[in-house]
């Protein structure tokens, strides 16, 4: 069985934002301060690119909570 892709770095920053109980279209440099992220991870967060975040290993429940406005439904 192939282990699912998980990015702890992405999930850590998304958890921190989700705990503010705010939804955002995209994250800012301020949101990312103190987090160690790869270039693609940082770019996806700053663009609010929900598909890229999923591919990079962000948990879909966290993607939904933070970027709810990005979803069509």
């Amino acid at each position, binding site marked *: 069985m192939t282990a*699912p892709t998980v990015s702890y770095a992405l999930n850590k920053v998304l958890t921190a934002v989700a705990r503010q109980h705010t939804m955002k279209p995209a994250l800012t440099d301020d949101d990312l301060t103190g987090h160690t992220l790869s270039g693609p991870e940082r770019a996806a967060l700053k663009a609010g690119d*929900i598909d890229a975040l999923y591919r990079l290993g962000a948990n*879909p429940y966290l993607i*939904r909570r933070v970027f709810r406005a990005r979803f069509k439904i």
Partner: protein
Amino acid sequence: MGEVVAAALTSHAPLITGKPDIARPEQRERLYAGFHEVGRRLADARPELIVMFVNDHLQNFPYSNLPAFCVGLADDYDAPSAGGGAFMRIPPRKLRGDRATAMALLEAGLDEGFDFAYSYEIESWDELSVPLHFLTPDGDIPIVPVYTNCAAPPLPRLRRCHEMGAFVGRFVRAHAGARRVALVASGGISHWVGTPETGRINPEWDRLVLDHIARADVEPLLRLTHAEIERDGGNGGQEIRNWVALLGAVPGWKGEPLAYEPVAEWITGCATVWVHP
């Protein structure tokens, strides 16, 4: 000796109560009727305690600390909190826990090979709030929640969830302090949440799951892999672990589907099932 006097499976989704108006009225009313029928039967069974098989959605258990199975030891549970209540359009309320029974369950688990994690503070989201809004409107029955990781893979295997539920069932029946106990599991059936396929529902798979449960034919469900569920039931379909755990507690009992509605607007294949000998 305790007695299992009732058992039920339901879906949970915040939109079921949070946005009732966006669903097609006939679907909404059929599903609500299913919830209310479970509530009526539950009341008739006069439980003194409800053991809930549920899952967190990364609100309580983050990636820094993720238990496979966790027993709630809280004095009470926000179900929902004020913030959650505003979103789910459910009045905030606190549901009483039963720490003595939960602790006894923990201790018994350690004796029998189920090393549950435990938590003294859990903020419930839809996993408790939505079904119990319908099932125990008075909120006067204490609960013991058993959380299974259904949201952050790798997840416990379905067979292990079934074994865990079987242990809980044995505990309920053997525990000297236990009383008339109801079992309720919430989650599923198919739904894709936060993935690129968000909004997809797979009624065919949902009916397959319901059919197995109706025949008490759980073995095929226990063989399902994470990948198969992800493909056919979506990441939300992984929550059938809660249902499978409950079915482990009542071997041979059959499910009677009271409602099944694939509600696109709530992005969930929604069901209520009464489980009986």
